[in-house]
């Protein structure tokens, strides 16, 4: 697929050459800026703006119409600004692609610099074993869930785009409540989220996508700070059933660091019930500090992608075998739990 190849632009610097020579990333090491950002680091482009206005005026004085003059004057702008404007105008005209799930790759790309900032600077994420994720074909990523707001899904996606030799976007299963919310629902679907439903998972895997699932669901994301790094029950093992039915390998993922971003000390269950939410977190900063409380704490993260567990050899009939499904589900849960502890030790201090 051409998109897969195109995504390679996220792997940068020495890694852009090829998957073979990928050195492990040094946290906090020197990193290059992207070509597009190098032109005007942080400053407002005053020079080009003036020459843009000058050209616009000249063109209008020459008797051209406004749209044409704008197009002519745009020649004075630097290339990347012109490209950005062009893309914006095209998007305003409805000229952008969304796949049948509503995933908007251009939109996801445009948010990437922000996510990369969180990944590199804010949470200083260390991703281990991204190569355990198959480069092609149907794959189910199973991870522990924590941190009230599903930033762990986003960081896993960024890790896949940044560290994997053949970057691919992951689709993630989202609690259906999120799809009743304004803006949140749109952002979720444009970033590759789908309603957590077995039908959707099945269809995505049949389309050979990379699907991320958090079997703990809201129980995991909404657990209190005292319960941190203790994995909750893995639903009813539905994800194993679907992996077996589609013969998709399962990649267990342990995420460490997400628990500290919003230390949930209490739950305002009355408020949660009133707004129909699964939980309403109270953290040391939220809601006491209002909107400021939404800023996640800068904990240090480690994400480990474990060895894939193949399921194709069991055949789709194995999905009917309840005890086998539970056993496999429990085995995956234990793998993740022990990897979480390992990484917790490897990480050391939570914030520094």
């Amino acid at each position: 697929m051409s998109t897969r190849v195109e995504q390679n632009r996220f792997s940068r610097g020495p890694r852009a050459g090829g998957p073979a020579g990928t050195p492990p990333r040094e946290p906090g090491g020197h990193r290059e800026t992207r070509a597009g950002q190098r032109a005007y680091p942080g400053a407002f482009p005053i020079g080009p703006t003036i020459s843009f206005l000058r050209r616009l005026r000249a063109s209008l004085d020459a008797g051209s119409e406004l749209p044409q003059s704008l197009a002519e004057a745009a020649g004075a702008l630097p290339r990347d600004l012109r490209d950005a404007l062009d893309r914006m105008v095209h998007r305003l005209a409805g000229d952008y692609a969304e796949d049948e799930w509503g995933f908007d790759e251009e939109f996801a790309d445009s948010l990437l610099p922000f996510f990369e900032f969180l990944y590199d600077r804010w949470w200083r994420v260390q991703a281990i074993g991204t190569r355990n994720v198959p480069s092609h074909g149907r794959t189910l990523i199973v991870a522990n869930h924590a941190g009230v707001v599903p930033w762990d899904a986003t960081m896993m996606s960024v890790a896949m785009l940044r560290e994997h030799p053949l970057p691919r976007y992951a689709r993630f299963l989202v609690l259906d409540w999120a799809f009743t919310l304004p803006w949140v629902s749109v952002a979720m679907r444009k970033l590759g989220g789908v309603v957590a439903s077995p039908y959707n998972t099945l269809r995505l895997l049949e389309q050979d996508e990379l699907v991320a699932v958090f079997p703990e669901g809201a129980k995991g994301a909404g657990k209190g700070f005292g319960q941190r790094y203790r994995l909750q029950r893995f639903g009813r093992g539905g994800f194993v059933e679907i992996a077996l039915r589609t013969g998709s390998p399962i990649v267990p993922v342990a995420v460490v660091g997400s628990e500290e971003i919003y230390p949930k000390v209490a739950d305002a269950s009355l408020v949660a019930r009133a707004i129909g939410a699964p939980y309403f977190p109270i953290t040391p900063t939220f809601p006491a500090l209002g909107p400021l409380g939404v800023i996640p704490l800068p904990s240090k993260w480690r994400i480990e992608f474990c060895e894939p567990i193949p399921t194709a050899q069991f055949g789709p009939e194995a999905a009917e075998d309840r005890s086998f499904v539970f056993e496999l589900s429990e085995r995956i849960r234990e793998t993740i739990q022990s990897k979480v502890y390992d990484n917790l030790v490897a990480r050391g201090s939570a914030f520094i």
Partner: protein
Amino acid sequence: MQPRRILITGVGSFLGTELARRLESDPEIEYIAGLDDRPPQARLERTDFIEADIRSPLIGKLIPQARVDMVVHNKIVRRPGPGMSERSAHDINVIGSLQLLAACEKAESLRAIVVRGSAGVYGAEPSAPQFYTEEMARLYPLRSRFQRDVAEIENYFDTFSRRHPRIVCTMLRYQPSVGPSLDSQITRYLALPVVPTYMGFDPRLQFIHELDAIEALVATIKNPVRGPVNVAAPGTIGLTKLVRMAAKPTAPLLPPFFGLAVDTAQRAGIDGLSPDFRRLLRYGRAVDISRLVEEVGYRPRLDTVEAVKDYVRAERGKQLLPTIRDLVAR
């Protein structure tokens, strides 16, 4: 099964007339009858036009007389047009279907019934699977009157086909159609001077091009399968993309004010939006079409975005002012 004698209800609608015209060119079909209370929209060569109200018991005499082996039920009102009350739309849908089935019971020669139903039976739900398959019709409570009507109609035909196993009953669940010659809910919505949307919602919608809608019906007539079949173009389109492609100014309204504003506009004489269409604008809906492709054997030629493009291209000819799209093209 190749039908030889066909009766089409609702032949006065655009799709009904076009279907009759399409079937007329087929030499395998000996006889076509068109039933409606309004005349066909174009002159038909060899279609027998039967002027009758589908709600009247009279059709119980007319249909057996026509000695048809297939009935195509195309008289389901998706949205009451100007001068039609919700009440009479409900009557046409439910009572009309009942009368038709009563007439079908008396028609000895009948082998198959094809109903042009609606995917509206699925409703529009935020937590729904992103592609409904045919067996998911009753996952959620029925919310709007139209949805209840369609569910009721489906029930009638389901019961009928169980009671008469020799008659093949196909229930086609159509997603909304778009196209330059069509006057449908979505084209009326896009024709509004300012398009109201729910603030913060950008649902995935799915349509079918008018020509594909007819061809899918023709394919089903040639090869009727039992039970429900989803009919839609492949792919989906976000509402925002849709209105931007149509170059329409939008009025994003907060959910509590949406209904209020649309109702006020309706009272002022501007085209209103039906309750099920409002839910569609908030949560969207898409269906899985593998049964149409694999069992009926028809794959729509245009996907959803292409269908919208075709509609927009035709509409643009009628506009006076250049749009942002024209400026981009320059």
